[in-house]
């Protein structure tokens, strides 16, 4: 009897908790409302199934708990019932899966007009690189990375000369423009995660991974690393600042191009013998 009451309380409590708890999604700040919608569909369907199964079980225990002289039925199978349950379950699964796959297709199909920005992760900081006026990022090679060339840009590549280098964990992006984030790591796995954007993707050394999104809210949003990357994993934070276009351009132009950086370093190097 206590068990029946506890089971009912668990169901009632869980439902109430779902509506009243202070812990729910952060306000959405990207175009991925469709992800939230598919999640809510799943939440509702699974919630109904949970409630139905547990309450049915509680009722069965209440009604058929052992009493003096009671005896169980003998019912090995019931094909009709089993088929019905299988069909109903399959319908529920399809109702969850179909929207999920449609939204996944959107998630992995980058719009043609999307601009690119590279996210570079390394233990335990973030850095970013924007293509210059040519709209193309220069080719990189991890083996070329050193203090003078932290991105590992190939010096002879003309596409890379005007790349804008952001050696700082703060990324600015303009509102309302789709951006494709190219993700790259120089050491271990990381994961670029901004809760309000709903999207995340691992950074894998040796690969360039990607995802895309369109920021829809002005403001500052925290970047977290969401893939265990060593002892300071939880301190690998950054910031995305969503600006209006002019403010974004102003911020972007504060950063040096690869050519400027190289020239600066060469100038420093040539000064050395004079000292």
């Amino acid at each position: 009897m206590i068990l029946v009451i506890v089971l009912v309380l668990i169901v009632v409590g869980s439902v109430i908790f779902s509506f009243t708890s202070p812990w729910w999604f952060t306000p959405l700040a990207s175009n991925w409302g469709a992800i939230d919608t598919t999640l809510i569909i799943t939440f509702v369907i699974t919630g109904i199934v949970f409630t139905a199964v547990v309450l049915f079980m509680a009722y069965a225990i209440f009604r058929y708990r052992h009493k003096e002289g009671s005896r169980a039925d003998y019912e090995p199978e019931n094909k009709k019932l089993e088929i019905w349950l299988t069909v109903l379950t399959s319908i529920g699964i399809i109702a969850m899966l179909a929207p999920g796959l449609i939204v996944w297709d959107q998630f992995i199909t980058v719009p043609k007009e999307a601009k690119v920005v590279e996210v570079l992760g390394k233990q335990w900081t973030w850095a970013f690189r924007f293509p210059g006026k040519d709209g193309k990022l220069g080719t990189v090679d991890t083996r070329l990375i050193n203090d003078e060339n932290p991105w590992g840009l190939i010096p002879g590549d003309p596409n890379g000369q005007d790349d804008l280098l952001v050696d700082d964990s703060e990324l600015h992006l303009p509102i309302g423009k789709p951006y494709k984030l190219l993700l790259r790591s120089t050491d271990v796995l990381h994961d670029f995660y901004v809760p309000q954007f709903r999207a995340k993707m691992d950074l894998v050394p040796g690969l360039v991974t990607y995802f895309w999104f369109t920021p829809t809210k002005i403001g500052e949003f925290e970047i977290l690393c969401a893939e265990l990357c060593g002892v300071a994993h939880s301190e690998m934070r950054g910031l995305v600042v969503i600006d209006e276009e002019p403010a974004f351009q102003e911020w972007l132009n504060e950063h040096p191009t690869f050519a400027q950086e190289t020239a600066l370093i060469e100038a420093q190097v040539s000064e050395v013998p004079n000292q």
Partner: protein
Amino acid sequence: MTDTVTGTTISPTDHEDHGPTTFLTKYIWSQDHKVIAIQYAITAISVGMVALALSWLMRLQLGFPDTFDFIDPAGYYQYVTMHGMIMVIYLLTAIFLGGFGNYLIPLMIGARDMVFPYLNMLSYWFYLVSVLVLMSSFFVTGGPTGAGWTLYPPQSILPGTPGYEWGIILMLVSLVIFIVAFTMGGLNYVTTILQARAKGMTLMRMPLSVWGIFVATIMGLLAFPALFVGGVMMMFDRLLGTSFFMPAIIAQGEALQYNGGSPLLFQHLFWFFGHPEVYIVALPAFGIVSDLISIHARKNIFGYRMMVWAIVGIGALSFVVWAHHMYVSGMNPYFGFFFAVTTLIIAVPTAIKVYNWVLTLWRGDIHLTLPMLYSIAFILTFVVGGLTGLFLGNVVIDVPLSDTYFVVAHFHMVMGIAPILVVFGAIYHWYPKITGRLLNVQMGHIHFWVTFIGTYLMYFPMHYLGFVGVPRRYFAYEDAVFIPESAQTLNAFITVIALIIGAVQLLFIFNLIWSCFKGKEAGPNPWNATSLEWQTAETPPGHGNWGPTDPVVYRWAYDYSVPGVEEDFIPQNVPHAKGETHQGRDDDTEGV
């Protein structure tokens, strides 16, 4: 006269001669499956207690950050890693297959022992060595590995991750030894089930416990090799400088000599093992809980054939879903479509199992014994864990939730708490056969209520931290603005509950020891169960299990409350009598 302990041709007097006589051969270097089972179980529970203690340390840091000076980030990640690996492999896998598998297979199918008793003994000793190697990593320079139980390279073998010096090597060596142990045991279980069943014990008359263990063992034999090669390759990368999993890397400003390897390759190998591993733990639990529910509800399991095919179907499907752990790993995103579909298909046979458990209760005669209480707690926990799996399996919903506390809550519900509730239920159920005495019921009730309600209070709200977006495997969250302060209160609450649940497990251990000497005498068949292990001549069963004559099986294991028969159960070794009516089970009346 054959020398095997399995055939029905054995002479009882011959067999008596095989019985060990000294303490050493009877209890230490034993080849008796029952003793080996207990050795496995005691070792698994002992190492599980270490993992439990590690979870306390972990929870102390999460619940009360900046309070305990002795927990630093490196230590925290080491606790997380060791807790996960021990619980999944060295406790759950070992206790279900090495423990229950060893004890139940021969007794339930009517065999006198495993077909390869010596191999069986070796399996245990290799397992023990693997545990000792793993434990030794607490005492080496740098301590155990803190790479997370998934051991993802490159970080697992690079400075910047605790235990990269020796911890990771010992972890890999231990896993390799464990897999050797498992393979010896597993081949034995499969061969025994296929070759040593008693006369009349057709496959479709076996109790579902045996079916679950059988399919899980086959899966283990197919899945563990992937982990084995992954582990060996990583060891080569770490020790010999190969680059299987290592691309060109600049680690903390220093160029390493690696080049051209693929970190994703390891993830594929790991999860090709890792996903079936979930079911290697779950299927024996499914099988055992089916039997517990049927026995204690005095009713046949509903839809036995469907249950068998669901076990087989889940086992097969679980080999084509592995990359649902890798939706945001950077693998080709088009894989997402395939793996989301396969993953959600697997929900159908899984749901059927849940329905059939609940329908077994319907119109039953439910005795709320401890095994039944645990079974019901299992169903509830498993329903939550299974349903949240539909979020994570549905590729695009996984994107916001992966690597958050939603995942932590999900897998603890589905493959941590749910199987361990079955372990408890099963121990309360079979303890009388193993020791001849019942476990103390009062202590059992305290243990049950605290564990059941406590774990729900812990993990249910944790899902909502995942909705907030709180990332897992974080040592501290102090300055994260998007996390409301109330989340810290919740974390403290979860920690307090975790400590209480942990403490009550000590009561359970005490009960195990106390009842062994002071428990109520159980008699041979305290639950009035039909399966063969309850029909042994002696309790606990002696060497060779069956005394002078082998059992002969006439029926399935679920003849409870058969109409026309006064007793509400008919053991499997009782021939059909006049007046028994088996509506809906016409395939079982032909006898042997």
